[in-house]
């Protein structure tokens, strides 16, 4: 009956080539976890920062889980998208991070990456936008032989989470 409460926000992103960004996010858990309340995925608004290059979303995350096991600790995965001046959206980065397992306030920085694609694709991307995307976005948080993927480092998504653990000590888990 251990409970994990995740309350916080996805603050924003910085370090991307363009600043008008939005983010699709989700929380992935293993089979032992049950969502008690809250939305486990969502999409933020598009932020066009007037000053500075950091895009702020302040997207609230309010999730309440209960679990019967530790396997599959929740992971937050994000996809950062960019909306260009024509209103088109293109992928800017994938990233994920584990929900902290210690209680308290955490400020996480989730780095992101983007598939590079062939040179033709890169060229096309430069002129007409778009870009390679993963066929299966599950790869963001699942470990496959990822070294074969050519990627480019993109910016950082900042996440601020407050973690409350409950009754984990009953099952011998110190927190």
């Amino acid at each position: 009956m251990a409970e994990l409460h995740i309350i916080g926000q996805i603050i924003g992103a910085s370090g991307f080539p363009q600043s008008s960004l939005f983010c699709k996010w989700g929380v992935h858990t293993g089979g032992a976890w049950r969502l008690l309340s809250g939305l486990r995925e969502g999409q933020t608004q598009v932020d066009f920062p007037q000053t500075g290059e950091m895009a702020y979303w302040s997207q609230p995350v309010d999730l309440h889980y209960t679990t019967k096991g530790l396997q599959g600790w929740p992971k937050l995965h994000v996809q950062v998208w960019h909306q260009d001046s024509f209103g088109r959206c293109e992928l800017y980065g994938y990233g994920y991070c584990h929900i902290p397992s210690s209680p308290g306030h955490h400020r996480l920085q989730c780095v992101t990456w983007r598939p590079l694609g062939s040179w033709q694709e890169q060229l096309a991307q430069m002129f007409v936008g778009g870009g390679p995307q993963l066929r299966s976005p599950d790869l963001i948080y699942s470990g496959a032989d990822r070294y074969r993927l050519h990627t480019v480092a993109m910016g950082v998504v900042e996440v601020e989470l407050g973690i409350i653990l409950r009754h984990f000590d009953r099952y011998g888990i110190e927190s």
Partner: protein
Amino acid sequence: MASTSDIRDKLRQKRRAFQESLVRVRDDTQALVSMAMDVNRDSAMEDLAGEEEPAETLRRSLKAQRQRRKKKLLEEMAVEESQTGADEEEMEDGEEEEDVETSAVEEVSEVQSIQQSRGRSETEPETESEAAARSFTRSSRDLPPLPMSRPSSSISESSMRQRMREKLRAARSKAESLLQQEVPVEPASRLQSLRDRDTLTRFDRETEPELRHVPDGDSSEILGKVKFREAVRRVRIDAQREAGIPTGEEAYNFFTFNFDPEPEEEPSKRRKKRRPKSEQAEGGQEEEGEGEGEEEPEEQEREVEREPAREDDEEEEEERDEEAALVRDGEEDLFLIEQSSQDFLEVRKAEYIGYNRRVQRESELLFTPSVRTVPASNKLPDNMQPRYLEEEGLYVGERPVVSLTNENILENRILRQDQATKWFGDDGRIIVLPDPIKESSTRPPLFHVEGDLDPSLQTVYRKAIKSKYAKRYMPGVGDTQGDYQLDVDVAGLIFSHHGLFSREHVLGARLAQLYDQHLSRQHKNLTRLLTDKLSGLRNTIRNMLELHGGQGLSEITQQRIAEYKQEVKITRQMRDAEQEKDRALLKNIVKVWKEIKALREFQRFTNTPFKLYLRREEVDRASDEREHEAEILAEVSELQAESWEDYEKKVTEYKQQNEEWKTWKKKQKAMKKKKKKKQQSQDEEEDEVEEESEEELGEEPTKPDPPEEPDLDAVERQVREKAARIRRKPGEPILVPELTASSNITPNEQCPRAEFGRRQDVLKRSLFVKVLYNDKEVSRTDSRALTADFRVHFGQIFNLKIINWPESIKLQVYETVGSSTTQLAEVFVPVPEPSILTGSATSEQLEFSSNQRVTFNHEGVGSDVPFSFEADGSNRLTLLTSGKLSCCVSWAIGEDDIPLAPPMTHASAGINSGIMQMDAIACIGASGLNDMKKLGKWAAESRLDPNDPNNASIMQLLSVVSGGEVTVPDYFRLEQLQEEFNFLSDEELDRSRRFRLLRLRTQEVAEFRGYKFVPTLEREVSEKVFQDYEKRLRDGEIVDTKEHLDAHRALVAKYLQKVRESVVNRFLIAKHHFLLSDVVLEEEVPTIGGPGAGVLGLNLFKLAEPKRPLKPRRKERKKVTAQNLSDGDIKLLLNIIRAYDIPIRKPQASKPSVASKSTRSVTETFTTGHSSQTAMQGTDWPFNQVLVRPFVEVTFQRTVLQTSTAEGPNPCWNEEILLSFSAPNGDYSTTSLQSVKDEVFINIFDEVVYEISEAERERERGGLYAHVERHWLGCVKIPFSTIYRQSRIDGTFKVEMPPVLLGYTKENHLVSDGGYDIVRNLTEGAFITLFITIEPQLVPGETIREKFDTEEDERVLLASEFFEKDAMQRFPDRPCLTTVIDINGKTVFITRYIRPLNPPQELLDASPNNPQETMELVARYVSLIPSLPDSVSFAGVCDLWSTCNQFLTLLAGDEEEHAVLLCNYFLSMGKKAWLIIGTAIPEGLTAYVLTYEQSRYLIWNPSNGQYYGQYDTFCPLQTIGCLINADNIWFNIQMYDAPMRISFDVTKSKFWKPFFSRAFSYPGLSSVQPEELVYRRTDKAAATELQDRIEKILREKIMEWRPRHPTRWNRYCSSTLRHFLPKLELSGGRDVAEEHRLELQSLLGEYRISGFPLHLPFSEIQPIIEAVYSTGVHKVEMSNVEFALAVYVHPYPNNVLSVRVYLASLIRTR
């Protein structure tokens, strides 16, 4: 600076000349100095006037000096040059002084003349203004540097001068004008000064002191000084502006050489010398001596000169000009200069140290390590040999590459340091780490082919996508699912007729067509097929017969043989038909070919390449004949057999019929006998039997005729005839036509002129095809020329990437002649099924034709023009241009063989979750997951990719389901150790109440929606929380009949509940769909004026409005979103203002004498009798004069508040009542507020005070003397949901009053004649004026904007959307409704609901002669169906419209269902009726019915059966938005919307905007209503039973409500009342009151009676109880009170029940 050297020369020359002239014109200058002084003084004067800028003045003065100097020079030059110039100059000299303004011009011209005289005409004559406008720099640049052989300075000088002159002139002209204004005497004095200079100087000197005597002369002087200093600066600046001329050195030399023989120190000395002087001057010395002046100029001059020399040295020439003048005319002013920054500065030349010297100096300070190699001995400690570790075999690693020079430098430097040796290794080299750079890159290059990458790692390039919202876009587009692509292949077209066809072409086309037909028939070869089948069948029959030897045929075999025979018959007929067709076709082909041949012969040329060969296939005559004969024989025998069989059958039939007829005859005879018997006996049973028998016999059977025997010979004859007609004659060769295009076409040259023209015309034509997708041109083919055989080949494929749903694909064929293009035809191509893919799709031949009329004057037959093949012009033909377009439309296949076709389903996009785009659950709903069939269907429809790992689970599930058995999966489990490490099992987790509560709340299960504060501790969650929920789950199927009294109603309630649930679930999803406006609250930008509320403009206007404190206005309140509210925050504000026409008390007769009155006739007037009586009963009736004392009691949510008591039938309370509101579960969300079912009851009571009778007074000594009683008069019910939706309700409402109020009467009861008159409505009933609102104002919930499934035409939907939007824009407060949602959640066009439907027959039969009464009855019937607002049942969802039969089955509905039903009834009764969509009080948006009757309009309120005239003031309908009937919708576009002020003539397009107009005609929408309504007869017994039950329940309830008093029932009275109620029902509650009263009066003379009948539609028992309770009859607390209660349930068809409850309280008066 090419001119510098020239200028330098010139300067030198000038200098020399000047020196000479200095001596020569000594006296002249003297005079000039005085002049300058004059000018200076002038300027001073001007300054005093404060009108001239100081700098300007000074500059002017300087310039004046220069001017004079220059003139001198010019004079000199004049000697050298032409005489004329000099003359002019001299002339001017004089003139200039007189008129400065003109001088400038003259000077310019003078300069020009000089230039011209020299033959230099480049300088263009300049006008005065031009010259003035020019800047100095410009003009100097303009001058081309002239190399001059002659030593002359004239050019540059003249230009300089010119500039200076211009400057001067500008300044002077200004000054002049000023001077002329101020000192008009001045010019005169100047003139004087020219004439005699001596006097002038004196005059000047005299004027000066005068000036100084001006009160602030001192300051003016100081000002003057300042001015000068400034002027110096100006001069410098001015000088700077001029193009730089000599270098600094030269200037320096120049000055030192000429004027400054003394060394440098001299000026400084002088300066020192001068300072005291200047101090002196400053000290206030007024008089400045002339002698000093003599000394000073020298200094002054140098001073002025030095400055430019130091700093800019540019204008030395000018300076030099000045210099001479300054020496002399500086006099007083100039030496006043005190300190200026120049005084402290001196010029030094730049210091320079030679390179060598510097290097030397630097070398002393700096260390430069040498680049030479350091000998090893230096680097090693003494006496050490270098040791090479590498040589010793030790690994040393590779040294990084460093250039030798760098190494040497480093070593040298290190050696100079302390402990230098520690940096060196044993080998005498600097110690280094091995080279860290790896040879190869760590990350090896990946040489992989895209294919062998792990599928999950593969990336796909996606274009930047635009998000789409509109519903017309396909789902999934723009998402990762990719685009859809349609391939349109336009292959080509063939004309079957074209205007340019010649006659031969026409025939050729026909031939080709026939041949095609022939080929296709041959290909199918139906004849052969059928012949084979026939013989096969025959063989089978023969075999069967043979097998059994003709005997012992079993039943089954016989049956089968019969079947076969039947088959043979059919097949034979079919074969014959086919054969006939074949033959006819062949004949036709031959005929046409012959025509062609004839035509070719006739016209003597060939146009078409067609050639027909008829191949003969010879046959063996004998065998053919044999076959033929055999065939005929077989057929004949079959036919004979058939006809014989037929005959036999007929014979047996005949026999049977004959038999029947005979028996009938017998029966009839018997019957006749019986009838005779029956006439004698009266027995009813007999009667029935007789009826039966009569029915049985029915009509008389005709006597059958015996059948004829078949004519066998005739059969054979027929067969032979037929064979001859349709079959080849035996032995005739088989003809096989072959059409070839081998015929030669006659070349052009040999053709007649007309044909030649035609061919030429053909060549001019070209065609192209436009491809239109959804009526938008997307592409077009190339233009191709029309060939002589009228075929055009395009062969182009267009790939259309689409994002819109394909609605239509159209191909337009265009023909181009020259430059003009005409559209020939339009071909619609069907949108392909998603399964039709490129590659597999077959090309289609789409026929097209055009009705264009084309005529030609050549051989072309034209189109739509009659022509004939015959010479005489008979047998005319008219052909239209037509042809076949072969094309193919299919869905493209993507790179990876994925069809780019959209999924079939129009499934509305659910919530697009952030990451998963195709979610099964989102698509079919969670409930669908349990339904395997549904899931399977979905999987098939959405073309799930079975290879997609995303779908693996679903695919497996499906395979398991379809396989029927669960196989052991051969998968491997990723989290296999999970079980071992689990903390606890699922069951334990499920047991947690807290978690369950949390989850249920999240799932928004009805009971827990909006539940707040889930406790943190498990034990704090009580089990009770789930009780309701579990009970509901458990009780799901059990129908509780007790609650509903009626099994049918219970079922209906259950059904309603289910519908509600499903609808609510459907909308729960939609509720989470947000629009921008839901999330972002944006204040409206204030606008000035404009349409709508010009916020700012209006407010500005308001500011100007006079304040009128006595006329307060309602302010717009701020709306509160229902989020942060809690209990007690919301208040209901009721303002009860006044009431009209409250019934008044009727004096009650309590004397026995009254009883006798009952015996009187009804005609006797009551009032007269009573008036006398009331006077008599003074004691009993203490408040006799008071007619009525009404007060209002408001009940809401168990809160009861009442107003004070007013008096009279038209009371005025004007009281405010505040009721607090609490939402269910404390949930103040919009949804919950909308579903609040509470009603506000506003009851009007009469307060009656009775004095307690004497006897009782005796008993209660010292107690009460009066007894207050309240009598219910009527009530108004307003549901909270209405108030919530409307936010305020303001108006006069009709009070619901019982038709009979015992003891009360209307004050002025004008008895109506039942006609449709206005007076009646005015007087009937009481009215109350109310104002109700919620404080604070809440934002009403919005209806769901979900797009629903629909079966409507897209076009209609679009039009309706547009119509509604347009209406909304023009009249935002008029409701407009075009589409509604039916009970299945589908969008339905509203007119489909209107259809004439039959009302129950018995209603029509009730009063067949009075149509008006029938209408009223029908309206009452409709109003008896209980009303159940949708917004309550479907919380915050939307209005659902059920059809009339659904409505009658459910027996519950909203206003619109009532209105639709009523409207349909009226229509079927032949009335003109419309549905009104409008707003009314208190319902808000509602539906009424409008009828047109006797040239006037009536408005019917369907919920209570009332009707109002158009001009009725108390009509609750306030706004009329639109009218609807079965085939159109009209929107009100009149200025007003109140029914009273509008015209109902819908034909006037000025007033009513129709939906279907000429532009968009009515497409003939079928109705959703049933053909007719079937009514069930209501069980009378059940009604009686119900009646008893209700009565019993009410009795119990009343007793229950009076716990402290005994409740006595007056049986006698009750029974009287019970008898009365049916009468009331029949009369519809009218006209019986008086009679009834009389009746009662007679019975209950000794009682004071107050009571009334209530009338309610029946739905459930609870509302009846509520209604009874609200009347408060039970509250009478007199001890001697008795009650009477009667209930009557009147059944109407279809279980519509009208419940009447009569309640009375009786008090014995004696």
